[in-house]
């Protein structure tokens, strides 16, 4: 693998405290994630997958340990700086409710670019381009509630990559989709990974999706139980061709 990791975690622990009940969600996770990887986090419910993704995305802070994004320790960033970091470097796809209901598909996709301060004309053309790359340009002027769940998740992926983040974090993006649609969505992400070099890290329950990844991290009880590099990212095409 390449020399300096995109993300590095050092003994990250997270304990939720609610009404004096302490829930240890992560019990010391040390990982390195590299550019162009297509990684899945698997593990039973409650094992800490979502928690880890939130910490990596700067949506929450670890109780202990440190996370480095491109060598920069995230604990040193203020709330506003974290927001800026999310805007510039992280793309999110959530399980559901990804889209702003009052904006059209095109506007939702361009929203991140708007926040980034990209000029109007450019953000529309970039959003249109990514929508057509993902084969959903025909929905550009639809509102989210008018399109199917699978289509909504595609739009969410489009929005996550349009700002060209360093990494896309997806928390069970297929949880509400049927099997065929789930496969389509993962294929879509995989294509973006292969053709555009986008780095993906997604959490999933669904073991049927795991044959497409080149790295699989399994969490159990808030700790890494297994970390398998299945195929090098660049070898995937050759493997498919043979």
């Amino acid at each position, binding site marked *: 693998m390449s020399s300096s990791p995109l993300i590095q975690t050092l003994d990250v622990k997270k304990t939720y405290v609610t009404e004096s009940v302490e829930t240890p969600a992560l019990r010391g996770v040390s990982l390195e994630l590299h550019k162009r990887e297509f990684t899945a986090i698997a593990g039973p419910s409650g094992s800490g997958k979502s928690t880890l993704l939130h910490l990596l995305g700067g949506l929450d802070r670890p109780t202990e340990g440190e996370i480095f994004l491109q060598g920069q320790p995230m604990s040193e960033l203020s709330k506003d700086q974290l927001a800026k970091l*999310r805007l510039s470097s992280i793309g999110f796809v*959530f399980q559901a409710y990804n889209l*702003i209901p*009052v904006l059209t598909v095109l*506007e939702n996709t361009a929203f991140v670019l708007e*926040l980034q301060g990209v000029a109007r004309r450019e953000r529309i053309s970039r959003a249109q381009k990514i929508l057509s790359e993902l084969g959903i340009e025909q929905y550009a002027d639809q509102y989210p509630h008018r399109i199917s769940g699978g289509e909504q998740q595609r739009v969410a992926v489009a*929005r996550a990559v349009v700002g060209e983040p360093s990494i896309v974090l997806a928390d069970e993006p297929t949880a509400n989709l049927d099997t065929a649609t789930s496969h389509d969505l993962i294929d879509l992400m995989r294509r973006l990974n292969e053709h555009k070099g986008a780095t993906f890290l997604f959490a999933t329950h669904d073991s049927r999706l795991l044959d497409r990844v080149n790295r699989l991290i399994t969490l159990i009880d808030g700790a890494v139980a297994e970390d398998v590099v299945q195929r090098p990212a660049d070898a995937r095409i050759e493997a498919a061709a043979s």
Partner: protein
Amino acid sequence: MKAAIRHIMRNRRRTTLTLLAVLIPVYFLVMMFGFANSMMQDMFDSVTRFDTGHMQIRAEERRGTGLAMPLMRDASDALGALASVDGIEWSTVRLDLPALASVGEETRTVYLRGVVPEEIDPISNMAERMVSGEFLTETSDGVIVGEELAELLKLQVGDEMVLLGAHPEASLGAIRVPVVGVFSAPEATMGRTMVLASLSTARRLARSDTAATAIVLRVDGVTGPSDTRRMDEAAAALRAALPAGYEVKDWLELVPFVTGYLRILTPMMLIMAVVFFGLGALVVVNTLYLSVMERTREIGLILSLGASRAHVMGMVLTEAGVITLAGAFYGALVGVALVLIVEAFGGIPLWGQMAAYMKEIGISPVMHMSVTATQVLLSAGAMAVVAMLAAWLPARRAAKLEPMEAMRYVE
């Protein structure tokens, strides 16, 4: 901006409520201004046209004249000084004498006001005020009385009245005069006490050919109670020109009760504005809080995508701003429209007790309305500012949401 407008369209009921919360206070305030202005204008017109003029030149107050005005034996020096001052549109000499008036068995204390009929007629509009009989002429030796006094003295046009002059500085005199007319005074107290005669008749009662108590003036360009600057300038010029022994009093000094009304009017309007604006602000805070609560997940999403807190705050404030501007605009529009409609129909006539009360304080029993552009802009602008301040709280609350907690929020 686009999102703000779509949010506004999405929940029309709440938007309408917020809009009304801004619109109604503005509308009410414009209306209150409308009534207050025209009440003041009305009082000003009736008092200055019928009674005080814009200002008067009088002999300086002396002790011992009691309720009577100090007498000017010969006002020609004052009239000379007056001729040298610019900006006086109109003037007339008047002699007011306290007197006893008897008709048949009835006797009342009255004011006999000697006037130059031809001069006061166009200003006081006496021809229209006559209830029965005729207005005075310069040569007539008759008197006219207010309708209230006519009733108290049980007199008819054509009856004889005996007047006993009671001015402490004039010789006692008594005259017998015919009552030639009955008029309607703009204010009930005047109607009970006022007897109008020609200046020569009044001078006959005072036994002096030159006596006067006031030179009544109207100032060029003064049309309403707010033209104080012109009046003050004219008063200052007069004071400078007049010889010793005279003083200048403006209408507010001459009718202190109007000053009283003026003084309570502003705080009253303020209190009403505060109450209305306060209620409006409460509704704005509430509806906007609801709107923010309802959108907690959406705001969480926007924050997790990396929007700054300022951005989220700006979003909520934009939404509030659009509604507020629309509300203030339409409130002003509806208010002004109402004023125009009321005036197109010639005002709102009052009846019964209300009409009688209005007459007591010198206001015509037909309510008119008028507003100035400044007052409309002030009402709309102040409400818009209040509404935006009220929107600040929900906006800040939205900006302070934690993205992950907000995303988990279930309605």
